[in-house]
């Protein structure tokens, strides 16, 4: 049971390439209450030997356009988006066919 100072979110890695970097299909991440999507991504970037970090952000610190992030099934356009307890975040490569 988490204290009210923390939230737990589920992160799912959909793309095989990302799964191979992090070694799991999904994981639970604990964040401070009030955390934003950007905070989660910064945390993920520091973990997994920094492998994921190389992909998440471009050189100017912006989210890499080659990565697609969905929060509770909707595409996230804004790193300032608030996260809540039990949110599900999907990290994937945008597969658009072919």
């Amino acid at each position: 049971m988490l204290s009210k100072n923390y939230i737990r979110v589920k992160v799912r890695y959909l793309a095989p390439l990302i799964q191979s970097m992090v070694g799991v299909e999904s994981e639970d991440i604990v964040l401070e209450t009030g955390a934003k999507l950007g905070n989660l991504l910064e945390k993920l970037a520091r973990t997994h030997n920094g492998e994921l970090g190389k992909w998440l952000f471009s050189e100017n610190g912006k989210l890499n356009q080659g990565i697609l992030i969905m929060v509770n099934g909707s595409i996230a356009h804004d790193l300032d988006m608030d996260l809540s307890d039990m949110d599900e975040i999907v990290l994937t490569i945008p597969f658009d066919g072919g």
Partner: protein
Amino acid sequence: MVPVLPYGFNSRWLRVDLSSKSLKIIDVPEELYKEYLGGRGVASYILFKELKPGIDPLGSENKLVFATSVITGTPIPGVNRIVVAAKSPLTGTYGESEAGGFFAPELKYSGFDVVVVEGVSEKPVYLWIKDGRAEIRDATHLWGLTTKETVEEIKKELGEPFARIGCIGPAGEKLVRFANIMFEHRYAAGRGGMGAVMGSKKLKAIAVKASGRSVRFYDEKKLVEIVKWFNDNWKNQPGAVSRSQYGTAELVTPFNKDGTLPTLNFRGGSFNDAVKVSGEVLNKTILVSKSGCFACPIRCKPDVKGEKPYETDPSYGGPEYETIASFGPLCGISDLNVIARANQICNAYGVDTISAGVAVAFAMELFERGIITSQETGGLELRFGSTEGMLRLLEMIVKREGFGNVLAEGVKRAAEFIGRGAEKYAMHVKSREIPMHEPRGKVGVGLQYALSPIGADHVQAPHDPGFERITQHLTALGLTRPVNRLALNHEKVRAVYYGMLWWGLEDCLGICKFVFTPHSAGVLTPNHLVEIVNAATGWGVSLWSLMKASERAFNLARAFNIREGFAREDDTLPQRFFEGLEFGARKGQRIDKAEFDKAVKLFYEMAGWDEEGKPTPGKLYELGLDYVVEELYKG
């Protein structure tokens, strides 16, 4: 006076008349290249101008065009595909297919931008092109050989181990309506039956070899700069790296989770055993190495070796996503070894893996519904999931044996022959079998299936997820508002329309759909393409003028189809897509027919077509297609 060589093209086409056994080299003015660029542009120009409406696609009057473009032969990765076109024996429409590999640059280096083959030879022949010269050679001894045997025999006979060869297999000889043309027996110009057209002409193969490079480019330094930029950057693009590691097979898992993996003849969108046929498992099991195309470092093509009893030869290449899905989930099959074997049968005999897989799945559904029985199938129990049934039926199709002879006509004709309500389960648009992308979960794909000039095709425009968030790459194309994947509103129609012009431009230039954004695996941008064309030709074109060239080709292909009698009612989808998915993550989801029809009408308006989908004189004049106005509006 010494003639000044142009930049970017040879200015020479080879015209081959197999009836009279004559070869003619013609000079082509630069203006034609400026207006049509190559590929689809040139092919649609030739076919519209030179084919009479109503001709038999498998008769002597059809013409088969092999076209490069003004950027073919540059060192840029992914811009070296050959475009093959003719009136399609499968659809009766303008037909076109593209293949990667090495044939296109070799043809262009050998001195010809385009080869047009017409007439019919009395006996089997092949065409040998080397350094600006060509000859027609006897191929009687090659008739009946598989594609690999053909390639090996011709190389041996010519003493040219590095010749590049496009050929047909026995299926093309037997006029299977979805027979393909194989290049080096692993790169397929797969769709629409171009191999059957080649077979009808008794043309077994075209072999090309260049000792050097006949063509020159305007700014070679700039081209090298772009290659360097590509090589420095592609490993920073997650989509490109993923494609390099997993090939297109990477799509199986995400599509399955998304509920858009066509399963059991499009009854559902998820497959319980999808993981067994995924790119991840392929890499861990049957993959032995990777291959690629001319100048491309991504090397997305798998070489596989199947395990007993389904051994396969890695030189045929391995199954890519479309093949995995069509012989796997679509037929209820979850064994990659079996799928790899089916892929090899298709490549050896020369048939399109999509159409073949859909034909087998169609037969399986008919069998399970009792519309056909084992009496008709020659004793085969064609249930979903039957590996032996699938492989045996596939062999019967490529050899036109028994019930396979019916399916070799494509699912539309087969359904008409079978009757008893079979048409309801024949998944096609304009007779061309549906590719492995479920439009009920990405409805813009349904629009491109319906509006493609070549029948159902999945590489006419980027798919809906690509329009859900606006990136700088979409902005370059003038798209600034995200559109939900399930929307069928004016925003979606616009996105699909612009998308079709952009990917149509790639077909005019012989470009791989994976290399340029906004495809998720893309590295180069639309603005890079402008730089590439200008560096190749020195013309000073803009993205606007290139898109206009694409629109010109799109309208030419449309006009070709209008002249053949295609109309509004042909721009639709199989009824199944207007009904709910039976199972999977998107169970119950369907496309609303009234909304879809409205979207098609809106597309016409955006394209400058009338209510029947016929390009208006105003649109045609705007594109400089005066001769099309004269033809479509005569009398």
